[in-house]
């Protein structure tokens, strides 16, 4: 399978006054097309920073990030915006839907920043709505929907542009366990049926269990990288070897 993400020795260093803090301290990893990866780690482990870099919202201080063969770590802000628009989808913990904007308009949002909207895009919207069970809710506003429905809308928005990579940052953090399960099933379904590559950030092990590979970060470094079948409920306390 094709390598969709290649991170090579990525550093992200923040300067706080005189002190330099390395949020990412030499992370290298490879994610192949169609994978479902969970990134775990305690707060401050650098998982949010990694997510921002993977999501092209931020550029690494040092190191190389290739997305679908493009070295995006060298892209300008505008080029990164275009990459986000065409190749990435985001699902956030707090849904981040535009309030007072209908469901359908929220889903269409990425498309308005494109030069041209093709017939395929509009067909895609209708398909998304059907798949995610949002039929009949098109004209509703986010505040009229349940948390689960809102997250489904966010997922629809994330995949409306047929992204190479779907990034989910604690997508179940604001949901109860039944709805969490529901949303995770939607994500696994998308991964399984449509082959969408998903990178999921979570601190809940049972949510990580939906992924087929779990990467644990600690202090800005990859602590472990294991297939989730071997993954047992408590976080492994024994240090594992880092993948090259």
């Amino acid at each position, binding site marked *: 399978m094709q390598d969709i993400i290649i991170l090579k020795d990525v550093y992200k260093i923040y300067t706080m006054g005189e002190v330099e803090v390395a949020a990412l301290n030499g992370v290298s990893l490879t994610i192949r097309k169609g994978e479902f990866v969970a990134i775990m780690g305690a707060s401050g482990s650098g998982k949010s920073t990694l997510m*921002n870099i993977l*999501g092209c*919202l*931020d550029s690494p201080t040092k190191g190389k990030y290739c997305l679908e063969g493009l070295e995006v770590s060298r892209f300008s*802000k*505008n080029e990164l*915006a*275009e990459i*986000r*628009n*065409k190749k990435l989808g*985001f699902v*956030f913990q707090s849904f*981040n*839907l*535009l309030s*007072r*904007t209908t469901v359908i308009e929220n889903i269409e*949002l*990425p498309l*308005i*920043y*494109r030069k041209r909207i093709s017939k395929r895009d509009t067909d895609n919207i209708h398909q998304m709505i059907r798949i995610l069970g949002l039929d009949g809710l098109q004209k509703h506003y986010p505040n009229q929907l349940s948390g689960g429905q809102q997250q489904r809308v966010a997922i629809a*928005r994330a995949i409306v*542009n047929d992204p190479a990579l779907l990034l989910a940052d604690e997508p179940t953090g604001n949901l109860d366990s039944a709805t969490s399960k529901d949303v995770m099933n939607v994500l696994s379904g998308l991964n399984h049926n449509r082959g969408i590559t998903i990178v999921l950030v979570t601190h809940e092990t049972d949510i990580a269990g939906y992924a087929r590979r779990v990467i644990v970060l600690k202090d800005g470094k990859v602590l472990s990288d294991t297939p989730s079948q071997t993954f047992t409920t408590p976080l492994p306390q024994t240090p594992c070897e880092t993948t090259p």
Partner: protein
Amino acid sequence: MTALFTIALRAIMRNKLRSSLTILGIVIGVGAVIVMISIGQGAKAFVEKQLESLGTNVLIIIPVSTTHAAARGTTGTITLTAEDTFALVKECNAVSYVSPGIRTTTQVVSGNMNWTTGVSGAGPDYQIIRNWPLKDGRFITQQDVNSMAKVCVLGQTVVTNLFGTLDPVDKWVRVKNIPFRVIGVLSAKGQSPTGQDQDDMVLMPYTTVQRKIMGVTHIGYALASSATAESRFEAIDQITSLLRQRHRLRPNEENDFSVISQVEFASAVMETSHTMSVLLGSIALVSLFVGGIGIMNIMLVSTTERTREIGIRMAVGARERDILFQFLIESTVLSSFGGIVGVIFGIFTSKLVSYYGGWPSLLSSLSIAVSFLFSNIIGIFFGYYPARKASRLNPIEALRYE
């Protein structure tokens, strides 16, 4: 771009009260500019019209008393004679017409009606000099002057006050118990630039006023006209040297008369009205400027409030430019909408002012176009800073913003 326009419009509609209050500043600004300019222009046009009614080539010669005049045992007011005026026509080639004049205020009686007004003596050329058509009847002739005929021509105000709606021609009026036959009626001329009613006047042959009413031999003033408005300076020079010669003034003596051009007088009035309109216009511009600051204020609040929205838009691929344009369009739509409403408001108000205030106003399409354009420029100018601030946000921080 169309999409950005829709987003901006929707954002405006979402907060109707705030948007309309923001717009109000521009409405008042643009409206004020239009009202002030139209009032200024109206006043200017009014003065210009009056200037025309006076005649641009009319010169007034009045005697002035000098210190030397008293020493000669005369009073300043009797130095000017009808013979002087005849000489002016004969010897000054820049002077086309001259009419000797003398004026007194007295009561005019007709039947049981009376009216106190100015009785002016005039020559037959008076009508040509003042460019003043008759409404009815005939004007004073040279023969009337020669024979000191007891005839008169009435101004509109006098007609209204003595005869009402009746036709006064060939009727009689009494001045100092002498009956005068009305031979003509002047057309209405309206106010002079100094605000006097030019129609409140009775004209008689100047000889009649001199002998029958006042019992004097001198004249009070003379009206002259130069061939053209441009030749008035030449005419003033010729009149001055001729009168000095006729009055036997030595080179070191001051003139015992004065030649005044109406143009100089009126242009002073025009200057004042121009200054006024500039002043009014700049006050209005300040209020438009304040309206612009209002837009900037609201846009700054709005961009802060919508930080998260900006983050979401950036996450799904909005470029800096897209965010910049979104907010710039929003502020421009606000200001240009305010401009449109302001234009309507301004037109309405200036009509109202001229209707109830009796103040002349002149709406010019230029002032409307300029103030509307200016409102757009204000929107772009004051919207740019908040929009740029929004577009420079860091998407990660914007998404985290609560």
